[in-house]
C-alpha cells in the first residue's frame, strides 16, 4: 500500500467512523442510565434530514445543524415518554420509531424538495489543525476534515470525564446500576433517564448532521442505512466502556473504509463480508466469546417506584 493510499485510508476511516463514534457515545450514556434506545437509527435520520432541510432552507449550514438538533427533541421525548413513563418495551418502541421516522423523512423530503432534490445543500466548513494540514501527503487526506469532527472529539472527551468524575455522571451510572438507590437519595430516576435519552437524541442528531451536511452535503432516503444499529453494536462490542466503544467505532469505520479501498489494491475480499464484519463481531461479543460482557444490570428495565 502506497503512502497516498494509506493516507486516504486513515482519512476515510476517521470520516466513516465519526457518525458511529458520536452516536455510540450518546447511546452509551443512556444505556448507562438503563435505557436501550433502538431508536438511535431514527434519531440519526431525523438529524440528517432536518439538518439538510434546515441548511437548504436557510442557506446556512450552521443554522441547519441547529435545526437538526432541535428537530430530534420530539423524537427523543417520544422514546423517553414511551419507555420511561409508560414503561413500554424499549426495543419495540425503538423499532417503531425507526420505521416511523424512515417513513416521515422520506415522505417529507419528497414533499419539500420534490423538484429541487438535486439542488446542492450548503455544508459545514472544513478545517485542519494548524500545521498538521500541511504535512506532505498525509496532512491533506487525514486532517482536512469537517470542523464538526474535531468538535465531536472534544464533546466525547467531555462526556467521558463527566461520566467518570462528576455527580451527574454518578447519577447516570447509578440509574442503570441501582435505580432504587438513586430514588432513595432524593433524585428522580425518571428525570435522569429522560435527560439521558435526550442526550442520546442530541448526539444521534449530531451524527446524522455529520452524515448529511458534514460528509456528503445531501440527503437521501434512509441515508443512515443501519448506522444507528452499528452504533448500538459498537456499544455492545465496547462492553459499555467509553474507551472500548470509541475503539470499536474506529474499527467498524476501518472495515467500511476497506470496502472502498480493497478493490483498488487488487485484494479480492467479498464486499459483503466486510459490510457484515461489524455485526459479526458484535454478535461474537454478545455471545460471550470475548470476555464477560457486563451490561448495566438495569438495562431495559423500567423503574417502578
Amino acid at each position, binding site marked *: 500500500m502506497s503512502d497516498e493510499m494509506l493516507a486516504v485510508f486513515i482519512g476515510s476511516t476517521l470520516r466513516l467512523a465519526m457518525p458511529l463514534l458520536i452516536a455510540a457515545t450518546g447511546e452509551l450514556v443512556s444505556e448507562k442510565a438503563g435505557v436501550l434506545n433502538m431508536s438511535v437509527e431514527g434519531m440519526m435520520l431525523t438529524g440528517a434530514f432536518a439538518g439538510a432541510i434546515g441548511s437548504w432552507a436557510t442557506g446556512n449550514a450552521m443554522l441547519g445543524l441547529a435545526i437538526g438538533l432541535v428537530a430530534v427533541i420530539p423524537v427523543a421525548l*417520544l422514546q423517553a415518554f*414511551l419507555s420511561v413513563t*409508560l*414503561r*413500554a*418495551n*424499549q*426495543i*419495540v*418502541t425503538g*423499532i*417503531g*420509531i*425507526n*420505521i*416511523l*421516522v*424512515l*417513513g*416521515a423523512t*422520506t*415522505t417529507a423530503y*419528497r*414533499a419539500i424538495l420534490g423538484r429541487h432534490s438535486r439542488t446542492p445543500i450548503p455544508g459545514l466548513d472544513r478545517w485542519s489543525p494548524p500545521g498538521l494540514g500541511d504535512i506532505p501527503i498525509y496532512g491533506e487526506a487525514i486532517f482536512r476534515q469537517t470542523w464538526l469532527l474535531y468538535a465531536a472529539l472534544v464533546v466525547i472527551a467531555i462526556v467521558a470525564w463527566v461520566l467518570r468524575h462528576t455527580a451527574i455522571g454518578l447519577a447516570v451510572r447509578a440509574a442503570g446500576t441501582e435505580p432504587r438507590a438513586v430514588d432513595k437519595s432524593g433524585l428522580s430516576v425518571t428525570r435522569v433517564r429522560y435527560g439521558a435519552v435526550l442526550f442520546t437524541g442530541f448526539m444521534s442528531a449530531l451524527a446524522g448532521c455529520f452524515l448529511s451536511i458534514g460528509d456528503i452535503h445531501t440527503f437521501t*432516503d434512509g441515508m443512515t442505512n*443501519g448506522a444507528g*444499529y452499528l452504533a448500538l*453494536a459498537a456499544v*455492545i462490542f465496547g462492553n459499555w466502556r467509553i474507551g472500548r466503544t470509541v475503539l470499536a467505532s474506529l474499527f467498524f469505520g476501518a472495515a467500511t473504509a476497506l470496502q472502498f479501498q480493497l478493490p483498488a489494491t487488487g485484494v479480492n475480499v*467479498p*464486499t*459483503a*463480508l466486510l*459490510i*457484515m464484519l461489524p*455485526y*459479526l463481531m*458484535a*454478535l461474537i461479543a*454478545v*455471545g*460471550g466469546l470475548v470476555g464477560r*460482557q457486563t*451490561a448495566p*444490570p*438495569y*438495562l*431495559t*428495565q*423500567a423503574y417502578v417506584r
Partner: protein
Amino acid sequence: MSTGAAAIASAAPLPAGRRGPPALLISALAVLFAIGCGMALVLAMGVRIGDAVAAFAEGAWGSPYAIAASINRALALGLVGLGFVLAQRANLTNVGGEGQIALGGIAATAVSLYGGAASLPAPWSFVLPMLAAAVAGGAWGGIAGVLKVKAGTNEVISTLLLSFIAVWMVYGAVQSEALLRQPMTTTASLPESSEIPDATKLPPLSADADTPLHVGLPIALALAAVVAVVLGKTVFGVRLRAIGLNPVAARRAGMRIGPAIVWVLFLAGALGGLAGAFMLQGDQGSLKARFSSGYGFDGLVVGLLARGSVPGVVASAVLFGFLRSGGINMELAAKVPSALVLVIQGLIILTLAGAAFWIDRRKEPAR
C-alpha cells in the same frame, strides 16, 4: 444482557383468561388512530382524499389479481408473525424475521437451482426447497436460542445482529458466480440468481392466470392451525407459557428450559425461513440483493398486533398485506409516497406498545 428477558414482559402474552375484548379493542383503536393520522397527512400533502382512497382500494382489492397479490403478501407476513407469537409465548422476542427470510431464500434458491429439486416428482420438486428454507431459517433462529441458553445473550440483540448478517449474506451470494449469481453471459447480467425452474415454483391454485394465488395459501392456513393447537392444546405449549410467565418456577417444577428455548426459536426461525421460500417460489422467482426487503420487520409488527393470538396473526397479516399493496398503488396512481404506509406502520407499533401500559395495568394486582 441476561436481565433483558424480564423487561420484555410488556410484549408478553396476557394470561388466557384475561385476553379478549379490551386488548383487541385497544389494538383496533391503535390501528384506527394510525390510519387516521395517515389520512390527515395525505390531506396535508394536498392530495384529494378521494383520489388517494380510490387508488388505495384499486391497488389493494380492485381486481382479482390485486386481491391475490395482497393475500400472497399476507402469507409471508403471517408466517413471520406466527413465529413471533410462538416465541413470544415463552417470553422471547424474535426480531430476526428479516434474516430468517433471507436464509430461507438462500436455501430455497440453492436447492431449486443446484440441489436437483427440479427433477423430483411433483410435490417434492417444490416441497424440498421449502423444507430446506425452513431448516435454514430454523438454524438461524436456533443460533439465537443457543446463545441465550449458553451465554445469556438477549435474543433481541442476537436475532437483530443475525438479521443484518443474513441480509448481507444474500448480497454476497448473488455477487459471486461461485455462489448463487447467474452465469455472466454478457456484461449486463445483473447480480442476481438465475430464475428457478418452473417445477420448483409454487403451483397456482387455479388455471386462471389472473389470480396468482398459489398452494402456499392452504399451507400457511394449515400451519396457523397447527401453531394454534400447539400453543393451546399441547404439553409443549403449556411448557412455553410456564417458561414465559416464570422461568424460575418452571425450572423448579423440573422443566428443562434450555432445550425448550432453543426449540421454540428454531421453530420461529423455520416459519420465517418458510416465508422466504414463499416469497422466492411463489412470487419473485430469483434471488436478488434486496430479497427480504423489510418483510421480516413487517412480520414482526403483524406478530405484535396479534397480541399473542393466532387468529390475531391471520387478521393483522391480511390487514398489512392489503395495506402494503394499497400503499404501492397509492404512490403510482395518486402520487402519495408509499413511505406514508411506513408512517402508519410506525404509529401502529408505537400506539400499541404505549397502550400495553393500560392493558397491563388492568391485570396488575392493586399495590
